[in-house]
């Protein structure tokens, strides 16, 4: 089982980082950009688990550590997929 967790600042909260990135995107010609929120994502490998149980456990992880729910909100995706590594520039040159 694998969980993907994304954490974003709550919409009501000023996200200065997202705002700076939006401004930069607009400056380089992406005028269609209206809003950017900058967050974090986590990939968590869990071993064999029932999907519902996995979602519950990861939800608890979010509440306890991965997100600060005073200022952030989170989303969880659970999948049974095998590990698929994202190819990064650094990996290609190694």
């Amino acid at each position, binding site marked *: 089982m694998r969980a993907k967790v994304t954490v974003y*600042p709550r919409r009501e*909260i*000023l996200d*200065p*980082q997202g705002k*700076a990135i939006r401004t930069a995107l607009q400056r380089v010609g992406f005028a269609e950009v209206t809003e950017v929120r900058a967050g974090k994502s986590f990939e968590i490998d869990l071993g064999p688990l029932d999907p519902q149980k996995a979602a519950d456990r990861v939800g608890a992880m979010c509440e306890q*550590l*991965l997100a*600060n729910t*005073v*200022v952030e909100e989170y989303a969880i995706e659970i999948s049974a997929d095998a590990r698929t590594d994202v190819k990064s520039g650094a990996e290609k040159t190694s």
Partner: protein
Amino acid sequence: MRCGVVLFPGSNCDHDVYHVLKHVLEQDVVYLWHEETTLKGCDFIILPGGWSYGDYLRGGAMAALSPVMRSVREHAGKGGPVLGICNGFQVLTEARLLPGALRRNRGLKFECRDTYLKVERSDLAFTSCYRQGQVLRLPIAHGEGSYEHFPEELDRLEAHRQVVFRYVSPAGELDDDWNFNGSARAIAGVVNEAGNVLGLMPHPERCAEEVLGNLDGLGLFQGIVQPAARLVGAAR
């Protein structure tokens, strides 16, 4: 009184706090490593500034789960005084010992400068050396010090008089230009409902000795360790 300065990997204002308590106020002071499971008999716990655990995940998030914090929580629950400065404030909010959260500064800039703080209440032990409404000059040095909470929770804080310090102009007026990090309602420091756990972003330990040219921060420590000093402070 025995004071304990908690040391997380990445703390960097610990010795300044130790120095003020040990050499300026002549108290018994020990360091408490983050892996400690007891507080070594300390009566007053200080969480200093720095970058505990490299600020991984969020400022204070990892430190809040460290072993020593279990004992700090117990101490706080029994009414023992706990002071969190800068990163220590972040740790206390992440540990839910104080309400709210500290977010990236409004302008994304690391702000290192003097700020002016209005003392919103002087009826706490911590602030007993200050006068209600007194304006203090204390330095800040942080990138994530913008205080945030849900609007209804901010109202609750105000109703319970939990806002202890607010960023103001040198004249003591609320002024957005002097709220460098963009904190909600210009909040610089809050206390728990019981009044024994206080957190603030500015650094009182950096202005607590004559030679530093500013003594405005000393009262915050004196209020706890030298109750006799309260009268002196009030007469100032």
